[in-house]
């Protein structure tokens, strides 16, 4: 086994996903099969190989720091599930 059900539960917590028991069961089997498959990368010696995080070699992209209009409070809040005045409303953070 590459991954146990307890580990899958832990990853679900990290990913902020409230998964059901059947979902956790299925994912344990599927993730195990996929992780077993990706093990094949270990057959390659990659010592000294520089990792690629970006396909095109690129330095930092700078632009002038100029003031621009933003979309405004109403447009920013238009899709809010809940709002209060000019704020996003959320459940209580500290119990």
């Amino acid at each position, binding site marked *: 086994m590459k991954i146990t059900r307890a580990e899958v539960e832990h990853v679900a917590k990290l*990913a*902020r*996903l409230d998964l059901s028991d059947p979902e956790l069961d299925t*994912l344990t089997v*599927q993730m195990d*099969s996929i992780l077993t*498959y990706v093990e094949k990368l270990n057959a390659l010696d990659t010592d000294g190989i520089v990792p690629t995080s970006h*396909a*095109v070699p690129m330095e930092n992209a700078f632009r002038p720091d100029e003031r621009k209009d933003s979309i405004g409070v109403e447009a920013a809040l238009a*899709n809010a599930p809940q709002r209060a005045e000019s704020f996003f409303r959320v459940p209580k953070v500290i119990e």
Partner: protein
Amino acid sequence: MEIFDLTIHELHEKLQAKELSSVEATRAMLARIEAVDDKVNAYITVTPEQALAEAEAADKRIAAGDIATLTGIPVGLKDIFITKGIRTTCGSKILSNFIPPYDGTAVARLKERGAVIVGKLNQDEFAMGSSNESSYFGPVKNPWNLECTPGGSSGGSAAAIAARTATATLGTDTGGSIRQPASHCSCVGLKPTYGRVSRYGVIAYASSLDQVGPLTRDVTDAAIMLGAVAGYDQMDSTSVNTPVPDYVAGLGAGVKGLKIGLPSQYFIEGLDPDVKRAMDEAIALYKSLGAEIREVSLPHTEYAVATYYIIATAEASSNLARYDGVRFGHRTEDARGLAQMYAKSRAEGFGSEVKRRIMLGTYALSSGYYDAYYLKAQKVRTLIQQDFLNAFQEVDVLLTPIAPTPPFKIGEKLADPLQMYLSDIFTIPVNLAGTCGLSIPAGFSAAGLPIGLQLIGKPFDEQTILSTAYSFERETQWHQKTAPL
């Protein structure tokens, strides 16, 4: 020939000659959608009022002599593209009520040229899938055989071309999501080099791999669409500031003396015999046109799928952290406290494929596993990219199949995600290398299902794969066949 059958360049000529108005063309397209989309399910949202208003504006421009090639042309957009005032779902329940406050750059560039947006196209949820079965809005059916998938994730964008419900469409390609559905629906699909088209306003899946590109009836249309959306954009710091050539003007370059490479790792046993036959015929045709065919090696090909499913899922787990039920998107009605609200909103809003990829990516990035999975995959990515750079020392373009088989049946691969992932083996390496590739119609299986041919080019050399594809298209009739709807 009906209006909805015309290519961009054919429709453009009629609009320019005032044989037809954009309003007439748009009405014809909307009527076609109304007539056949129930069967195909290519559209998530159709926008008739906006489309007709845009068509009227286009007709005014044309009357004033201000016509670009795309002015008045009805186009569809994968629902991954942010559109101001038009619901944008990305195929997900979590965004099923999301109405964006702005247009992304590719969409803005189409609109500036006067293109008419007829609607938003179905896709795999968050572009995660190879069959369009993960959409919250139901699977897209392949117009060539309604029991088959159109491929994915830009399945709606490809099916709309085959079903004649858009003149051209935009899709995105992270591991093959333009080229594979283009192949399965017998249209032209182009994935440009990473950085060629701005990703601003494109809902992110895997940011180091995602790229925007067109799906069209023919190669000329692909060149027109790429020319319209390509180019540097200050709003995407990964877009590259190199000049955009006149792709249409360069189409006639021909293939005499062109060196075409056949990567031996792509012509393996297990390749479907119909696909193999279509490749052999294409190779013979290119030879007869004066191209030089050489075998080349991309030795790390077999590691591409594993590398992709680590890198893409890791980036996805990070990108999709923004869907938390706070600022936009679905929020659970059943939560005590903030942490539970996040976890329940996400669990209710995401489908199973998205959850699976978030879980894999979170695992690959988690403490203790980062080096073993993510860093390892990034190193193998370097080797895969190096394979392509080496091959392009010897040849100008690579010719390969797009998919190992013709389109598969809906439901056929759902039970085994790994088998589904492996069907992307010939398209994924191009994304990892960051270079460009396209799919062009190259025949049909014995069962009448489309088969696509892939041409892979050097970074930022979209021009050569387009002209190489154009040479093929001029000698074949595959792109003129229409789906039996």
